[in-house]
């Protein structure tokens, strides 16, 4: 890290005209001894570890006035509702789901509005539902829906919103288990329900994929990991016989109209940050953009089509807004590791031992610690200025050629389990074993998930004390999230459960330091 600077300084001194450069003994003491892996996001690392830890801009962005301005504007837009919301939607603005730029929350009661979590829809082959599309939008602006004003949605929003397509809810059954040393634990097994459907029945083979809004930071770095890196890690046929068979997810790129490598969202169905942003605007907020120009109203949803926002532009947001928010998402800084003592130059002991255990039980078989980014290209929409977009966007330096520590292989893995949906009295109920959701997307099956990055995981509940873990937020703690692993992680889970209590706490101390 700082070595480069010290190095170039020495060269400079060496070339200076006067007496030979002293090989200064002080150089040693000037050499920063912070280990590389503290800087989880390379140059795009922040040392803020408060409840705003996920909302920071990298130093290099702050010190470049134009990039700083783009970040500030993107941040403001990320927090604000844009024109053209709805008529059907999950939440009108980005940060309404990504609370404090962190994770959303699972509603604690069926009456609590599900505003920062969503249900993807499709049949067991992944085909969107003919009446509801690929996502349940539980809310509508009050000019749309016909339901009476005493609905729980109307009550909770002072009449601003009505019920949209229907109501989704989650409840839990407690599942008991124990470690090899006999210590008991409890997990929350979710049961998903969809009821109060406003546009007729769902297709007979419907599957629900409930997902909590994830933390946002670091995506620009993950986007810049070269495809070759992902390809080199993939082992679809498990030729190394470690039980892990990571695959590359294929996602369709709207801009190039070509199949591409999927990277973002829980099943890696978005190939780029830009497309993920546009998809979220469309699917979650009902806001159209140049990438997704059509409103999400289906032909069967006449009241939705009839109530499009007349005052909004077509598409609802322009490319500048899209580019600012893309830039903000890409450059949000990754929190630095905690637990390193800069005086003694040592990691806390449990963290070191926990990291060794993490590797020993092969967690890093999927949660690959270190990557090197390539060139992070400028926005496909153009270079951002306060006056608009211009051609020739230059690469984003702070994201390029960075050594980063995301703890993911960016591949999809089968995590096991299967699902069953039943219908009774107009309520659909889905129960699954393991981590499965039963909903395939692209070439990713109903029990496969992209390895989520682990950087910053120790700060998730600092940023939002009500946040929980895994795709649907079923795990109340990181420990529970580990215990939910199955499928390709079965061997690792088995070994985790065989660890002593002390070893388990060390492993969790390591994860908490990420």
């Amino acid at each position, binding site marked *: *890290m*700082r070595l*480069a*600077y010290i190095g170039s300084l020495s060269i400079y*001194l060496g070339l*200076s005209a*006067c*007496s030979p*450069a002293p090989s*200064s003994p*002080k150089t040693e003491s*000037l050499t920063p001894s*912070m280990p*590389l892996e503290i*800087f989880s996001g*390379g*140059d795009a690392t922040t040392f*803020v570890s*408060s409840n705003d830890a996920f*909302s*920071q801009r990298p*130093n*290099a962005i*702050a*010190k*470049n*006035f*134009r990039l*700083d*301005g*783009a970040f*500030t*504007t993107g941040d*403001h*837009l990320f*927090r*604000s*509702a844009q*024109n053209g919301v709805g008529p059907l939607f999950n*939440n009108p*603005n980005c940060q*309404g789901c990504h*609370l*404090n730029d962190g994770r959303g929350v699972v*509603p604690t009661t069926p009456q*609590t*509005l599900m*505003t*920062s979590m969503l249900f993807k829809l499709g049949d067991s082959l992944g085909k969107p539902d003919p009446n509801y599309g690929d996502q349940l939008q539980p809310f509508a602006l009050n000019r749309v829906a016909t339901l009476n004003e005493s609905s729980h949605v109307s009550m*909770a929003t*002072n*009449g*601003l919103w009505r019920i949209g397509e229907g109501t989704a809810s989650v409840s839990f059954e407690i599942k008991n288990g124990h470690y090899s040393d006999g210590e008991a634990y409890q997990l929350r097994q979710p049961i998903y329900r969809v009821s109060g459907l406003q546009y007729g029945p769902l297709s007979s083979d419907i599957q629900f994929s409930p997902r909590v809004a994830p933390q946002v930071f670091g995506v620009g770095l993950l986007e810049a990991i070269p495809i070759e890196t992902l390809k080199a890690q993939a082992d679809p046929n498990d030729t190394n016989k470690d039980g892990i068979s990571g695959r590359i997810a294929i996602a369709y790129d709207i801009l190039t109209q070509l199949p591409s490598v999927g990277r973002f969202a829980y099943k890696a169905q978005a190939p780029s940050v830009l497309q993920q942003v546009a998809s979220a605007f469309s699917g979650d907020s009902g806001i159209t953009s140049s990438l997704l120009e059509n409103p999400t109203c289906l032909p069967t949803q006449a009241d939705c089509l009839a109530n499009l926002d007349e005052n909004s532009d077509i598409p609802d947001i322009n490319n*500048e807004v899209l580019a600012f928010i893309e830039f903000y998402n890409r450059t949000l800084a990754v929190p630095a590791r905690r637990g390193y003592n800069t005086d003694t130059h040592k990691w806390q002991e449990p963290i070191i031992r926990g990291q060794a255990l993490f590797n020993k039980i092969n967690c890093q078989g999927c949660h690959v610690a270190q990557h090197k980014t390539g060139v992070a290209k400028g926005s496909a929409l153009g270079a951002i200025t*306060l006056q608009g977009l211009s051609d020739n966007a230059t690469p984003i330096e702070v994201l390029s*050629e*960075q*050594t*980063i520590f995301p703890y993911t292989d960016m591949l999809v893995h089968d995590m096991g389990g299967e699902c069953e949906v039943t219908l009774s009295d107009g309520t659909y109920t889905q129960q699954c074993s393991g981590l499965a959701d039963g909903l395939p997307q692209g070439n990713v099956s109903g029990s496969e998930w992209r390895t989520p990055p682990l950087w910053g995981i120790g700060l998730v509940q600092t940023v939002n004390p*009500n946040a929980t873990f895994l795709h649907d937020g079923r795990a109340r703690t990181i420990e529970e999230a580990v215990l939910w692993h199955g499928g390709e992680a079965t061997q690792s889970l088995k070994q985790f459960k065989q660890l002593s209590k002390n070893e388990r706490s060390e492993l969790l101390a390591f994860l908490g330091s990420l």
Partner: protein
Amino acid sequence: MFKHNPLMISSTVVLLIALLAACQPQQSENVKDNTRVKELSAGVVKHNSDLAYAIYSDSLMLAEVLHDDILLLIDSPSKKTLHNARQSWIAAREPYGQSEVYRFRGGPIDALKADGSMGEDGEGPEGRINAWPLGEALIDYVATNIDGNAGPENPANTIQGNLIANVQDYPQINREVINQFYEYGEDERNVTTGYHAIEFLLWGQDVNSDSKGGFSRDSTPGQRPYTYYLAIEGQCTSGAIKVDAQICERRGDYLIAASEMLIDDLAPIVAAWQPQTGEHYKTLVQNPSDSLAGMLESMGRLSFGELAGERINISLATDSQEDEHSCFSDNTHRDIFLNAKGIENTYLGTYQKIDGTMLKGPSIDSLLREIGQVSLADELTKRLDSTMQAASQIDAQAKNGKPFDVLIQEGVQQSDISAMIERLVKQTDSIEKAIDALAVSTQSLRQDTEQKIGE
């Protein structure tokens, strides 16, 4: 922010200078020059820190006056006492607006933690003091049909009714309750404290003179009458209706507590800048080159990202009253003027205290001239002045019945507003040139930018 860098790099620079000095005695003339530049740099930083102390002291004093006038309003609500409290709020914004150039540099406003230690940018009291836009529906009665969004980011983060109206769940309105609901639900619109919460309570939403709101805006700010504070049965109002007297009493409790909290948030910042005892003051003055970098960096970041970008361009591009900084009082023209003034103050080493005293001392301008960058100094002076002229124009428009929210309604081509943006962009270019010209002093700033970590 890289906590451990500044010290390390400055010691590296010291080493470099020491080595160069040791092996190049023939350049004693330059060294002497350097000494003069170094002395001047130290003087500039010290003076800038003295100005900070003056500006924050003024801010604190006027926050105390505001609090006093709020007490008078609550004690005897009338047109006059409400008017006085509003005038005090507007006055309190004058020094505070000029203080914002002390943001974006790891200073107390951004980094002073509640325990008194300095943390990272973002861990200080800035949000509690000046956060916006508000989801004001959390605090008090709001009209439903308004041009803007009174709610939180996420409607799950609402409470039953609002803090003032919900007597059952929140029997006491006090600092604890206000603190507890600050960013309630990790929702950044749930701002319960600071200037803008007080502003909302004093003016109410900006719903035009007919109180009907609607898309076409008039020249008036929020229209709350003093009867919102009249804690007498049958006379207390919320909007067009009469409400229980205790609602008015609770509104008063809220204002009193919020203005006390503003004072308590400002006081430690003043203390940190106190020349004899302020920890931050001492740290800065001891590290003039880092401090000089911080001054220029703040000038650039406030000019471009914060003022031209977030506070002006977004409102203009979206024609959104919601994105207007002081949207309840229609005081945004002053926010713009004062932010720009603060930037010019930092460059020229000037500040006029509220007692009328003009403070003037060593400045970045004089430093640029000392190192021979006369034409750059002229350029920067001219561009800052040109920005102030544009700001004065916006200010004059507001005083002639066209406040900022009306101006932006004229469309994105609105010439007064776009002139302001253009000039701020230009002055940012010149600030960058000044950073380059003073490269030695701003070394740590440049290095953080260019340094690759991980290689």
